[in-house]
């Protein structure tokens, strides 16, 4: 089955990013396809490569990048939400790309299920 995932909050602030990551990983482990993970609202902060979490804590940005690298998961950051929040290509972590909201609607149309994580 094809899943789309929408992430509405930044890492460190809400568990939503963790939940979305754990769900995505579990879906891949079960052999499902992840059509796309879309980052909106403060969710765009998941893609900030400058984030340096404490060494004994998880690094969600790195975890997302690894999913893109290992499983080819399409990680899309909303351009309008990112501009407002000061996230641009210069500080974008590997595996993420910046694009329009249409990519979310496409995920809603093409994926069998769209699962939203937020505050």
């Amino acid at each position, binding site marked *: 089955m094809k899943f789309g995932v929408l992430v*509405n909050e930044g890492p460190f602030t809400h568990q939503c990013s963790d939940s979305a990551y754990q769900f995505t990983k579990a879906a891949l482990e079960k052999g499902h396809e992840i059509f796309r993970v879309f980052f909106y609202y403060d969710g765009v902060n998941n893609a900030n490569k400058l984030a340096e979490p404490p060494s004994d804590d998880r690094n969600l940005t790195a975890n997302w990048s690894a999913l893109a690298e290992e499983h080819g998961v399409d990680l899309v950051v909303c351009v*309008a939400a990112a501009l407002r929040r000061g996230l641009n290509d210069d500080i974008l972590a590997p595996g993420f790309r910046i694009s329009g909201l249409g990519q979310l609607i496409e995920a809603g*149309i093409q994926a069998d299920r769209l699962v939203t994580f937020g505050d």
Partner: protein
Amino acid sequence: MSDLPPIPPDDEDEFGVVKKFCYVNRKAPYGTVYALESLEMVLIAAAFDQDVSVVFMDDGVYQIKSEQAPEAAGMKNFSKTYRALEGYDVEKLYVSKESMEERGLTTDDFLVDVEVLDHAALSALMAEQEVVITS
């Protein structure tokens, strides 16, 4: 919104599929950004020619209160964008009757025309939706 997407031509059907998209708004405007950015999502879905419904319930009913004037608090007034929805063929706007009444509001308080549904009708409406987007 500063940049409204282009109003789609009638024959647009980019993906060849029309799904029932339902946006459920349960948060008040201005205190948080969700109302504003959710509205941007609604406009885009309409531009992709999907079958869009918008539900206002709980504190989300405050989003369409008339006479919003956030300028004195230093914020942008985006409430007129709700009036623009009709131009994008987003005409299915629903309000929870119980949420509205609990807050002492009537349909006269709203800046757009809406259909008021009680819990049972709203539950039935939402049960039909294929993609539910909340914020």
